[in-house]
């Protein structure tokens, strides 16, 4: 089943611990739907890009010719299964690609038929109507409510609510306005209200949607560095086995000639090993399993990101995500909930906590800031003070000048706010606050909190401790990261004191306080200098240099187009915590590749034990000792090995698409587990599989 990201609602934003890397499972219908594509890929001009499977195809053509010249039941059976091997490999790739096709279709629909009102000058009254694809960088268009934004750009005038669900799947509209970090709009999204003027920032045909379509379709997929390296190793192994089988021929001819009493068999005659059997041996030995699944693994890795609403602009970035050793996380929104919340009421001497709580609550009842709300909530939770309906109160709102807010009620005046402002207010009213309050304020500041002083006319009551609240489960996540060998660094604009307190509470390894964009960039450079790969998220224009410098730069979709341009991934949900999931997906991709390579090579052991005795046991009966599986006959042994080799590709397609199971743990533990499953399993499974296939085959005629 293809997951229609664009129609599904926003997925759970906060990553859950132990959430298994999911992904669409394989559906037989999907296979059948992809079959035409798989057959189309048999074209040698496409096949040659996959050297391992290209060899199999050449072998299939060759054996087909041999079978036509000298037909036999056995020959045709081998020919059929060799062709199936190639088709299965193509099917794996086609299925992986097919999953992106549906998404691409939806996106295309959004792009089609859009027209734009292009302003001729900065005069809003004069425009001409052009088709969206004709827009060039720098054109200025006007978009009104109900219209589709014709291309990527920045709002230069006006404010509007925009429905971005075509891109993000999120149905709630977002605000886009000129200036600041919320000025970027994406082509294909719809303006719901008001009117904006947009300067187009994209080149024709290179819009975000265009790139998304290309990405989900995998049409311009480039091989990643590790994939290239793995292909080289696979090609080398293929050459080794080609040499091994080709050079076997003179040895076989000689061995046959010195044993003239042995009759010709279907595997061996005076001309050596027969063509059909030789090709079967080559196909069984070269790493077809991983060769068939390699590109599907890569496409599926990108697809898993898409399912989490993350668009990777290159496969290279996904691979780099697995290698990341330093994560830069913005404090606000990523590590903390983003708002300070009341955590404690600290009264001065002579005032009870309840008294303070009551005053604090009273002063905040009309305060709609998140901090104010949190004080009311905290008073209720801790002291059972319910919200009250109050009549006749005069609310004193917060201003930047007074730096405090409060209420005047029945002659009683209550204020809360910054320490200096409130103290001044108290002194002005003739009060004499003690030193006591100064110590409390300093203590809270030192612990990283924000102190709000509460006072009545002429009398200080105490201090509200406002605190950054760390999201639940973050400490466990960071512990997990540490076990995976990843260092987490918190980035914050707070002062070092506050930063340290939050860093300690959240359990990050390090922090960068009072961070400016330049500091961020310098930190990334420093980490990279030491050979570390750095991942970060960002949304503002001033994040762009750091995003560009980092190895994995995830731009928030709500961010500016400069940020999106600089990063190599875009998170459509704009959820910075997702960076952790991205790293896991990168690792899972690499593990899947390694596991299937190991499995593929380990498989060869059993195939040798099937084919070598089948070829030569007639010549040297002692070699029958190698037939440990006790396969019925040479024909059934060779055919069973070829069939197993083909079926294992089909059997592993779901694994290639889903990725192997990944639980964050140390390298050593991961390796042990995967070695047992895919290394040892890779040796054992084919012995069982070939034997079972042989048991079935021997029932067929012509197999004994």
């Amino acid at each position, binding site marked *: 089943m293809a997951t229609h990201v664009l129609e599904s609602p926003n997925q759970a934003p906060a990553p859950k611990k132990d959430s298994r890397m999911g992904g669409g499972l394989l559906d037989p219908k999907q296979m059948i739907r992809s079959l035409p594509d798989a057959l189309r890929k048999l074209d040698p001009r496409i096949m040659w890009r996959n050297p391992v499977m290209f060899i199999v195809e050449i072998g299939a053509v060759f054996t087909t010719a041999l079978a036509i010249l000298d037909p036999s039941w056995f020959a045709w059976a081998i020919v059929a299964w060799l062709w199936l091997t190639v088709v299965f490999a193509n099917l794996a790739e086609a299925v992986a690609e097919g999953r992106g096709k549906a998404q691409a279709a939806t996106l295309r629909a959004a792009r089609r038929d859009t027209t734009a009102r292009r302003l001729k000058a900065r005069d809003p009254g004069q425009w001409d109507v052009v088709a969206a694809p004709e827009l060039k960088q720098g054109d200025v268009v006007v978009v009104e409510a109900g219209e589709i934004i014709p291309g990527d750009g920045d709002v230069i005038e006006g404010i509007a609510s925009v429905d971005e669900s075509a891109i993000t799947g999120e149905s709630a509209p977002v605000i886009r306005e000129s200036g600041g970090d919320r000025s970027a709009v994406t082509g294909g999204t719809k303006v719901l209200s008001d009117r904006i003027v947009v300067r187009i920032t994209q080149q024709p045909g290179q819009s975000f949607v265009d790139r998304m379509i290309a990405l989900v379709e995998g049409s311009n997929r480039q091989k990643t*560095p*590790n994939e290239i*390296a*793995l292909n*080289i*190793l696979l090609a*080398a*192994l293929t050459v*080794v*086995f080609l*040499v*091994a089988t080709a*050079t*076997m*021929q*003179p*040895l076989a001819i*000689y*061995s046959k000639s*010195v*044993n003239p009493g042995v009759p010709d068999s279907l595997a061996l005659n005076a001309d050596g090993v027969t063509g059909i059997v030789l090709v079967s041996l080559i196909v069984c*030995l070269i790493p077809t399993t991983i060769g068939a699944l390699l590109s599907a693994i890569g496409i599926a890795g990108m697809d898993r990101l898409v399912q989490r609403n993350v668009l990777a602009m290159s496969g290279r970035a996904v691979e780099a995500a*697995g*290698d990341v*050793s330093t994560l830069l996380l913005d404090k606000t929104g990523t590590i903390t909930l983003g708002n300070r919340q009341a955590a404690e009421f600290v009264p001065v001497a002579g005032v009870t906590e309840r008294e303070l709580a009551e005053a604090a609550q009273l002063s905040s009842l009309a305060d709609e800031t998140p901090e104010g709300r949190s004080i009311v909530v905290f008073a209720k939770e801790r002291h059972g003070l319910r919200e009250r309906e109050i009549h006749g109160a005069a609310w004193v709102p917060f201003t930047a000048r007074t730096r405090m807010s409060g209420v005047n009620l029945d002659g009683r005046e209550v204020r809360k706010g910054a320490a200096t402002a409130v103290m001044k207010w108290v002194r002005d009213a003739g009060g004499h606050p003690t030193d006591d309050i100064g110590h409390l304020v300093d203590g809270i500041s030192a612990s990283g909190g924000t102190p709000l002083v509460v006072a009545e006319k002429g009398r200080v009551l105490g201090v509200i401790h406002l605190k950054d609240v760390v999201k639940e489960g973050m400490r466990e996540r960071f512990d997990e990261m540490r*076990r*995976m*060998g*990843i260092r987490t660094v918190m980035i914050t604009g707070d002062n070092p004191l506050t930063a340290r307190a939050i860093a300690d509470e959240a359990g990050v390894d390090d922090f960068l306080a009072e961070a400016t964009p330049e500091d961020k960039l310098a930190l990334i450079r420093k980490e990279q200098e*030491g*050979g*570390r790969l750095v991942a970060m998220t960002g949304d503002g224009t001033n994040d762009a240099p750091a995003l560009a410098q980092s190895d994995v730069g995830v731009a928030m979709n709500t961010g500016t187009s400069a940020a999106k341009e600089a990063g190599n991934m875009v998170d459509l949900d704009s959820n910075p915590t997702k960076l952790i999931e991205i790293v896991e997906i990168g*690792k*899972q991709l*690499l593990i899947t*590749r*390694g*596991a299937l*390579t*190991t499995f593929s*090579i*380990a498989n*060869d*052991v059993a195939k*040798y034990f099937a084919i*070598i005795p089948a070829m*030569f046991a007639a*010549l*040297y009966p*002692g*070699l029958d000792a190698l037939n440990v599986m006790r396969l019925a006959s040479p024909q059934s042994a060779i055919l069973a090995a070829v069939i197993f080799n083909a079926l294992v590709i089909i059997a592993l397609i779901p694994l290639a698409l889903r990725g192997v199971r*990944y639980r964050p743990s*140390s*390298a*050593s533990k*991961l*390796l042990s587990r*995967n*070695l047992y499953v*895919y290394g040892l399993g890779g040796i054992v499974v084919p012995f069982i599989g070939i034997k079972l296939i042989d048991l079935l085959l021997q029932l067929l005629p012509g197999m004994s």
Partner: protein
Amino acid sequence: MSPTLAGILFIGSLLLALAVCFKPLGDYMYRVYSGTRHSAVERGIYRLLGVDPDGEQRWGVYARGVLAFSVLSVLFLYALQRLQDHLVLSLGMKAVEPSSAWNTAVSFVTNTNWQSYSGESTMGHVVQTAGLAVQNFVSAATGMAVAVALVRGFARSKTDTLGNFWVDLVRGTIRILLPIAFVAALALVAGGAIQTFAGHGTWTTLTGGEQTFTPAAAASQEAIKNLGTNGGGIFNANSAHPFENPTAWTNWLTIFLLLVIASCLPRTFGRMVGDNRQGHAVVAVMATIFAASVALTHWAERSAGGTVPQAIGAAMEGRETRFGVSDSAMFASATTLTSTGAVDSFHDSYTALGGGMLIFNMLLGEVAPGGTGAGLYGMLVLAVVTVFVAGLMVGRTPEYLGKKIGAREIKLASLYLLVTPALVLAGTAVAMATATGRAAMLNGGAHGLSEILYAYTSASNNNGSAFAGVSVNTPFHNTTLGLCMAFGRFLPIVLVLALAGSLARQAPVPASAGTLPTHRPQFVGMVVGVTIILVALTFLPALALGPLAEGLL
């Protein structure tokens, strides 16, 4: 003492002696290759060669140094043999025939020491000492230099230089090989090996017959022959000859010599990369393969069936009585697991499976512990490939010792692993496919095939031992085997140096909990597995038609 117990004591004491040497010799070699001071003698040599000993070389320059030096050595050796009849102390030997001279020249320069001639009836004193013995030193030192250059590739970062070939060559020869060989030669003389430049002599044998014999400087040659994993004997019978290897304890010493440098180089490697545990892991891989191979060969030899062996209680054909089955098998394993190729028994007389093990030892690429230097660089390339295949399973792109194994690195490592099998198999196939090649076979059937396979395996892997049973001193085999030796030596060396250059350029990736640990038993097991599976898969068809066909009854 039962033969089994004697065998165990022999092997046990050998391993103990190697273990004792591991740290001091490894550390000593580390200091030799890392030091910055030059002795007066060395400075003199550098001046003579016209090289700046403090000039660092890029990999290409380093490789050109190796190749130029080797080509000149081949030409010099060839000329020396062809002009032998004009030389003093030639003992009246004739000029060596061209194809044999080519074969011998390549053979000694490539550290193979395959001998298609019979030493005592072909070579005079000058060729033996000024030609062949000198190559015994410098070809071994060249191998060590290349290994050290590769290790520097891992140890260094953000540089494009790998050291200076001439300095590594000279230091390896003067500071490592010469002193050890000198002491060993004295010990061998004490054990009864001969050391003389006398001419032909005639002796009366026990049965009263007359025998003409040319004595030689055997002890000194014997010492470096084994220490440098060369293997070219001064006499045709090689280490089976009583004047080269007179007693059971000189036999022990000989085996010790041929293992000692290759076994201790991993320590040098660990020191150079700044993590001794990495060196221990490498030596553990070598020791595991070594132990398994020795055990299997012993099992095959001691359980020898057949009428005659059972009548006399052991498979003694082709063995010296002073060594017996067990010590001979030990020597044979050690000589094929290193690139030595010296023999103290007749490998052709081994059981089919025992002989098959000897072939398999060489097919492994001689990495357990391998030739001087060649063993270490071969093993490190295997480690690189292992890291690449299995390292992905930890969820990072592969890295070894902080260096990323990317496309360029894996290309070089893959080509390295491709060269030798291609040479072995192509050589064997050509020999078996051509009438000229087959004409040299003295035996037919599976055993004859094993003999040809052994010859090309030995040459391509620069081992030099022979199964015999093939008249290899023919233009066809001299030429093809010579080509196998040359390509089998220098293609891998160039690839290893290119790999070293590529690694040295990288900035190191710091290790973390997410990094594949390459010092644990887990990794040791993986390298052993990859090594054996890769070799077994490549050569099983050939082995099936040779030793396996003969041995599985």
